[in-house]
């Protein structure tokens, strides 16, 4: 019994130490103003890597999720004779919830794991150490552009996801199942509020982007520099990011849409 309590306490202490290290790491990355001449090209390169190269999975997933929502929504709503509200349902579901959340989960799986593996491998092959010995701070040169790129790319990807999803829902609802196109777009326009729905969705994706990118770069930088260590760090990135996104989604939803 005493051992269990001790083990529980040790786990708690380890968690707090780990959070403290991650916080100190973040402060190190964000401190200092990058020089635009050197910082901008590095940021562009990372935006391409984490943003543009994630487009394919985001667009395809958005399309299918929109199409599934169209099918499911039509089946449910037609029982009540309100299939005309399908556009409203798809748009609110995507913009408020599925857009930010699914994009963040896909981002953690595609870009987050790649970031962790890349940084971990740079650590294992002493590239980060050699940078330090050349008088170049790897936190600013390697980590900061990747963190900012994740932070910037995520909301853009989430918006694209929602747009493609709404279009996919239209393909199924309007083109295939015969819902009147005017109802699809008209109901959507009347019920989706720019500030309450769209902006709140974007705020969610900004938060998720920051958290996912932070977890990914920290896990890479802090990993044990061996093949097993990098593998473990990559897994942790996906698991921690997914849990953080789902947990934060509940908190943000309660704050934004709770009405209490």
């Amino acid at each position, binding site marked *: 019994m005493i051992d269990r309590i001790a083990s529980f306490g040790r786990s708690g202490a380890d968690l707090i130490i780990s959070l403290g290290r991650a916080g100190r790491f973040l402060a190190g990355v964000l401190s200092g103003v990058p020089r635009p001449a*050197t910082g901008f090209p590095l940021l562009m390169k990372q935006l391409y890597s984490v943003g543009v190269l994630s487009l394919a999975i985001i667009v395809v997933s958005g399309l299918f999720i929109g199409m599934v929502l169209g099918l499911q929504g039509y089946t449910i709503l037609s029982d009540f004779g309100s299939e005309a509200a399908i556009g409203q349902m798809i748009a609110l579901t995507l913009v408020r919830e599925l857009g930010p959340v699914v994009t963040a989960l896909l981002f953690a799986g595609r870009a987050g794991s790649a970031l962790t593996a890349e940084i971990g491998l740079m650590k294992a*092959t*002493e*590239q980060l*150490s*050699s940078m*330090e*010995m*050349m*008088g*170049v*701070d790897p936190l600013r*040169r390697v980590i900061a552009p990747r963190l900012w790129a994740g932070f910037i790319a995520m909301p853009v990807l989430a918006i694209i996801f929602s747009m493609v999803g709404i279009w996919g829902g239209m393909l199924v609802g309007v083109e295939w199942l015969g819902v009147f196109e005017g109802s699809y777009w008209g109901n959507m326009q009347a019920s989706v509020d720019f500030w309450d729905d769209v902006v709140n969705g974007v705020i969610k994706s900004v938060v998720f982007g920051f958290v996912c990118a932070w977890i990914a770069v920290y896990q890479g930088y802090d990993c044990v520099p061996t093949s097993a260590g990098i593998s473990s760090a990559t897994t942790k990135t996906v698991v921690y990011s997914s849990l953080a996104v789902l947990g934060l989604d509940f908190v943000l939803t309660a704050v934004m849409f709770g009405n209490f």
Partner: protein
Amino acid sequence: MGLSSYISLKDVVFSRSGRRIFNGVSVEIPRGKITAIMGPSGTGKTTLLRLIGGQLRQDSGSVMVDGHSISDLRRKELYKFREKMGMLFQSGALFTDLSVYENVAFPMRVHTKLPEDMIHDIVLMKLEAVGLRGARKLMPSELSGGMNRRVALARSIALDPELIMYDEPFAGQDPIGMGVLVKLIRDLNSSMGLTSVLVSHDVKESLSICHYACILADGKVIGAGTPAELQDHPSEQVQQFLNGHPDGPVPFHYPSSAASEDFGLSGGVS
């Protein structure tokens, strides 16, 4: 610190993960000379370089480089100070997403505002010095292990440092590659007036080029001096290391319980 010492370590104590690596190590590294730090694997030779470079901090004692206490430098000052240092890592540590040319140009692009044509000329001169001017367009993945280290050497001297540290430069090299590196280390030291610190357990090659050497074992310095002085050193442990004897003060057998216990022999074995 003596006037001729560029690096001075005094009573350095350092522990990691609960294990004592250095237990009062004192080393003087003279300016403009090649000093070899030798010792069996796992004695903390690379750790010593990291203490000199400020990547690790000692628990107690002092690490002075060119009159500056490394552990007292602030983060920004330390990064500035490192511009005077070059380090050749065991793996080469080239940036895998940059070509050979861009790897050598990297420190200049970051730390100087030199025009592109001047960077071009300096990169070619540095690559010429290591015999790889013709390989400038290759990527690190296209280089052999020896070429990789020579490019890394060209990169580490790109800013004409005062100090260069070599971490196991001969490990895993064929005889030709080893000969090339020995020549390069000697030539660079004499032509650029560098202070060189060479960490290695390749006794023959290290003693052939160094002016001074010190041998680390069990967390302390067990022998130091010129190569000739070390060859005549009275310590059995030094002689065992230099001559590669399999048994001696460093035992062949890892500490264990009595063999009779492990083999389950009640009568014991002799």
